[in-house]
């Protein structure tokens, strides 16, 4: 039982739940709650993106596009057409999943830099559509969004949203950990390491890449929908290429192929700009310096580097070497 509690899976989930439960003690005003909610939503996107980048080894520089489609889909359906927010969220999520499937099929045949360029292009096309179709989206001015409500109960106020996002973040982490430890997750990690090695044991690499691309798009889209309802307003700024880069940076900073790393990356890189806002002129400079420092000193990302430092040395490897040599 104790061993189970100490495992990265159960122990990690528990630790995260405790942090989420106790954090409000330190959140003294609305602004802090606001930052915490933003962190949670970014973390959900990053968990999905990490499944794609960290585990399956496929890059996407267009995930702000899926986040934006989620946000605008919910905004347009719920606010312009008066759909119930939950129905709008579900319909939007379904549509984004379908889009990711249709677009992912041809572009996931590409590798490395080519895939990066294709997903970059996808993100830019989504941004262009959102910022020019002002009849629906309000264009650069943005669009206001009705509060989220289910069965007559409206989600309003930072405190309520904090608990909702906190709970969803736990669910997202749980889903991510489950997927990675399943046969499907092993297939993703395998094709990351050797595509031909994965294929010859029966893994359809193309199908798995497509599947994880769709899953990661869905995570981003749901977070986008929630962000729109929470803030009550969306503008194209969250759909930009720069935001896609921020998301990838969070994943890489926290640690590729680490679900908790994705969360840590989102926490640090979402709060850092807020802390640095005090000396605004130097914000980007300090941000850049932190990034460069991490890449040089912790290239695996924060969480895997720390885990490696803390892990006890195993006896099995050394003993085995002697007996086989």
């Amino acid at each position, binding site marked *: 039982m104790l061993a189970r509690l100490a495992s990265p899976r159960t122990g990690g989930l528990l630790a995260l739940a405790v942090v989420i439960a106790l954090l409000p003690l330190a959140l003294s005003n609305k602004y802090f709650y606001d930052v915490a909610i933003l962190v949670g939503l970014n973390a959900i996107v990053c968990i999905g993106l990490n499944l794609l980048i960290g585990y399956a080894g496929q890059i996407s520089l267009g995930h702000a596009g899926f986040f934006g489609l989620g946000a605008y889909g919910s905004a347009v359906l719920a606010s312009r057409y008066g759909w119930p927010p939950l129905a709008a969220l579900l319909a939007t999520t379904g549509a984004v999943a379908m889009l990711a499937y249709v677009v992912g099929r041809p572009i996931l045949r590409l590798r490395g830099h080519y895939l990066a360029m294709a997903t970059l292009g996808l993100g830019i096309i989504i941004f262009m559509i959102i910022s020019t179709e002002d009849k629906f989206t309000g264009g650069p001015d943005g669009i206001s969004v009705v509060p989220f409500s289910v069965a007559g109960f409206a989600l309003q106020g930072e405190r309520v949203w904090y608990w909702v996002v906190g709970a969803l973040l736990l669910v997202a982490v749980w*889903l991510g950990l*489950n*997927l990675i*430890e*399943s*046969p*499907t*997750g*092993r*297939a993703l*990690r*395998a094709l*990351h*390491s*050797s595509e*031909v*090695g*994965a*294929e*010859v*044991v*029966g*893994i*359809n*690499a193309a199908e798995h890449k497509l*599947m994880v691309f769709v*899953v990661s798009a869905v995570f981003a889209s749901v977070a986008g929908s929630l962000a729109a309802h929470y803030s009550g307003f969306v503008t194209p700024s969250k759909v930009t290429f720069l935001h896609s880069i921020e998301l990838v940076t969070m994943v890489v900073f926290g640690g590729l*192929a680490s679900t908790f790393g994705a969360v840590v990356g989102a926490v640090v890189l979402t709060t850092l700009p807020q802390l640095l806002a005090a000396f605004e002129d130097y914000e980007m400079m300090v941000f850049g310096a932190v990034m460069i420092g991490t890449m040089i000193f912790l290239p695996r990302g924060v969480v895997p580097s720390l885990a490696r430092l803390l892990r006890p040395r*195993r006896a*099995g*490897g050394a*003993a*085995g*070497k002697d*007996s*086989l*040599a």
Partner: protein
Amino acid sequence: MSMMQVEALGKKFGGLNAVEDLSFEIPAGSVYSIIGPNGAGKTTLLNLLTGVYRPSSGRIRFDGQDLSGRAPHEFARHGIARTFQNLQVFFNMSALENVMVGRYLQERCGLASALLRFPRLARAERACREEAAELMRYVGLQDWLTAASDAMPYGALKRLEIARALATKPKLMLLDEPAAGLNPTEALALDDLIGRLAGRGVTVVLVEHNMKLVMGVSDQILVLDYGRKLAEGSAQAVRNDPKVIEAYLGSEIAHGAAYGEDIARAVAVAAEMHR
């Protein structure tokens, strides 16, 4: 009965015929070896037989079904497994997980089941872990059950690939130079392992440079030269074939060793000297 039939198989790279007009049959339950000088097209042939390359011409039938032009994962689904000369170990996973990946075809589950970790999946995972450990013991990796794959030496990694391939429960298993880079003791253990595989009813295709291993373990040998069939037959027939001696063995062991048994002995001596 033949397990795999290859008819007029060809593979072109640009203007070069890496494999040309090759026909042969692999009998079920046998150890079938493919030998030939460097660049004879052995690895190309293995890649064709596992779907890694698409043939430019010809057909591959397995268990009566035409698999020509299919993807490698479909070859695997029909019961064909392989190892690689240049290892394709999943270094981002533990040794045990590498073998567990090999059980993908039996363990695979839907996305919902994977995301929500239904109790049935959790149970299957435990069974999968145990069977993978069992296979690791079977190939002699009992000391590496908890090892990270990137901490293992070359010889152990070669066995790990065999365990992973076995985990797919193959009918046909293709080994690409399993003895390359092994010391004579390890090569001997490999000889024993191949014998046990065949004893399990797995048909084995062996591509190998180690003549001692090939001559000892093979039921039938195919000799390639410039992508074409030079000879085919039992170890005895092949090593007494003058064409083979000239094209292959003659060039490999240039001095001294003349015919027949002498060649195997010369290789054994050379191997001893390398120790």
